[in-house]
């Protein structure tokens, strides 16, 4: 897990959820981000697939509860 990966993922969250850096945290839960709804979730997943060149499966993304879960998934894919 590189700092670069963290920064790229954080940027995806800030832009998609339209939040400031102070409102973001890798271990904040989905319910703590008021703009993280199902549409935003799909936008985040799609951006991750485009930026990191990975393909995320339904059973992988359905259990995602916080940004760090996605960080683990990206790392697992070797990116």
């Amino acid at each position, binding site marked *: 897990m590189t700092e670069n990966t963290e920064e790229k993922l954080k940027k995806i969250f800030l832009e998609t959820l339209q939040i400031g850096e102070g409102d973001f945290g890798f271990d904040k839960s989905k319910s703590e981000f008021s703009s993280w709804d*199902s*549409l935003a979730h*799909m*936008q985040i*997943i*799609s*951006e991750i*697939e*485009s930026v990191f060149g990975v393909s995320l499966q*339904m*059973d992988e993304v*359905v259990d995602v509860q916080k940004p760090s879960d996605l960080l683990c998934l990206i790392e697992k894919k070797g990116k």
Partner: protein
Amino acid sequence: MLLLWGSQPGLWQKEINSMDISIGIDLAEIGRFSKIEKESRFAKNIFTSREIESCFKKKNPAESLAARFAAKEAVKKTLKENVRFNEIEIINEKTGKPEINFIDKKLNKKYKPLISITHADKYALAVCLMFKP
């Protein structure tokens, strides 16, 4: 079956009791679909190629995309399985009436959905009534 329920009061309750029925509803903001590009990963993750072609032929694609997204969410809320958005297809009959087509044909046999969709200036709304015979 619905005609039978209407014509024989009392029987409908028995019919409903013998079925598994669930309901799903969703509201989508049309504006959030205004910048979606036809060839984007996001569009392909949510919509089937047939839906993308159909929506982008419309004068205001965002309205159609939002309505379909709301319909897919409404359907997902009635299902027991986790199904990807792009495996639930909303197609319109010649009359314009929307119908649900699951890409996984087993789900077409398992579920019998009824869907209703509407939209106004800013929002699209869909309600799904799902019957599992």
